């Protein structure tokens, strides 16, 4: 008769980019239960809204996480614009979409590199991160920053991208496509990779919906939900269908993210082809009304991020709340870990693409 043992996983672990602790209740080599523990990087950033006015807080929002930096500034700015009933110029909306989709590309390629490193394919990890550098170079050319862009403002964006730069972005993305397709082949067709991913960490469509999961983690279990179909900003003007897989395992999650990179490249090309001329920002000087509330959702690389803002009549907000995708996916992760082999724990945890800095703020 086997006894249950509790094995600690994290907070420091070679496969975890950020601290997360799991108490794994294990019988023989099978995980019976996984109890998460977080709180290692809680910074109380939401309270800074009391001492920073709503223009200044955008710099705090984009520092919640390095990978989702632009996404948080975009989502925050959109929420405040809803609160203040500000109309953002169309060109600014397109520019935001271009930068946001570039963020998605770099985030997914970064994650694919980490996944390759986790299953021991180091050269694939190096190639992924080398390819990602080309996207970071685009960020540096267009905004001055590689990770924290500081380009989104309440009312629009701080910088324009000239036509010649837009053409350069298109050229770089065309150059990335062939190399990226070769990397995808390694991820999706290599037998040794498939052995580590196929059939591992299965979550059914019903469980995925019941657990409130979001993002590629959700879509890999066959649920068709992507916030971009709501048409906020310039997303409503682009042609696009969510990428879905019905397999629900780790391989499906890798496949969804891999295909989303190609889709993001196509969306950026569409945006570049149809971006209108005009202003990129409108001045915003008024304060939100006392008691005014607004909420918004944005599809970040890891999934739906929910923003809530409440005004108090002054330039400081009464409350700002960001519910990030990883917070919604933690419950699903505990379900995916049940019944898996101990050796598969790191792959399952990685395939939810956890961003602990975002989750804890």
């Amino acid at each position: 008769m086997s006894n249950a043992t509790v094995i600690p996983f994290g907070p420091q672990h070679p496969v975890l980019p950020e601290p997360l602790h799991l108490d794994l209740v294990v019988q023989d080599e099978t995980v019976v239960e996984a109890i998460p523990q977080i709180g290692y990087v809680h910074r109380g950033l939401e309270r800074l809204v009391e001492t920073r006015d709503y223009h200044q807080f955008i710099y705090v929002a984009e520092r919640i996480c390095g990978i989702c930096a632009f996404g948080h500034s975009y989502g925050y700015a959109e929420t405040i614009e809803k609160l203040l009933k500000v109309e953002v110029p169309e060109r600014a909306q397109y520019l935001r979409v271009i930068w946001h989709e570039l963020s998605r590309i770099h985030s997914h390629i970064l994650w694919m590199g980490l996944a390759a490193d986790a299953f021991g394919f180091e050269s694939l990890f190096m190639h992924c991160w080398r390819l990602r550098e080309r996207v970071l170079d685009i960020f540096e050319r267009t905004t001055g920053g590689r990770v924290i862009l500081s380009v989104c403002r309440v009312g629009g964006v701080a910088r324009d991208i000239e036509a010649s730069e837009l053409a350069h972005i298109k050229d770089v993305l065309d150059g990335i496509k062939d190399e990226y397709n070769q990397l995808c082949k390694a991820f999706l067709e290599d037998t040794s990779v498939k052995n580590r991913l196929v059939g591992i960490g299965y979550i059914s469509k019903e469980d995925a919906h019941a657990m409130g999961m979001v993002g590629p983690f959700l879509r890999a279990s066959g649920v068709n939900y992507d916030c971009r179909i709501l048409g906020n900003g310039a997303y409503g003007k682009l042609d696009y269908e969510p990428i879905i897989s019905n397999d629900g395992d780790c391989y499906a999650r890798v496949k969804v993210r891999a295909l989303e990179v190609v889709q993001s490249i196509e969306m950026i090309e569409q945006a570049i082809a149809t971006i209108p001329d005009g202003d990129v920002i409108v001045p915003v000087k008024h304060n939100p009304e006392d008691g005014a509330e607004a909420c918004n959702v944005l599809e970040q690389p890891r999934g739906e991020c929910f923003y809530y803002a409440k005004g108090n009549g002054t330039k400081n907000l009464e409350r700002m709340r960001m519910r990030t995708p990883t917070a919604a996916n933690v419950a699903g992760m505990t379900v995916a870990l049940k019944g898996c082999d101990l050796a598969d724990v790191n792959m399952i945890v990685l395939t939810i693409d956890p961003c602990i800095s975002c989750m804890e703020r």
Partner: protein
Amino acid sequence: MALITEFHPLEADKLLELSAQRCKDGWRLVQILGTNTENGVDLTYSFMKDNVIENFCIPSVKPEDPIPSVTGDFLVAFVFENEINELFGLSIQNIAIDFGGKLYRKSMDKPFTIISPEQKAAREKAAKAKAAAEAAAKAAAAKKAAAASAPKDPEAERAALEEKIKNMPPEAAAKVRAAMEAKAKREAAEAGKAGE
């Protein structure tokens, strides 16, 4: 399909019924948040289905008020409920995975209930601005009512106007006189129509 957001009040004893109904109807729990106010903590539950987000607010929850957990319907709520219990000091009960106050590493108790001097100053400023705006609106309304009810003395009004414009340039003064005469004619015509 555009995003639709709604805000509704909720009583604490209706929470479980709402949660069960939403779960049955295929809604998703998006998040639970707390907002610190002077009367307690406002708890907001957000549910989403298709393109609609409904936000339900239970106002002024005190630490001693027992709030039932919704993890029976939405397991994902355990993260938010633990966070609220720790950061706001509330008593959400029967959470499926309860960290017992050890979710975050904190240096103080109930950190989100502390009203900072900056927030206090902002609230006082907002209250003063609101009171001043209300007083100004009240005064303006009273002045308008007094002007409407007071009997009109055209001679006195003309004398007051002449007094005001005596130092203006002649062209500007002539324009003002012409505008006042046109207004008087218009009011006379309206009074005549009303009399008919």
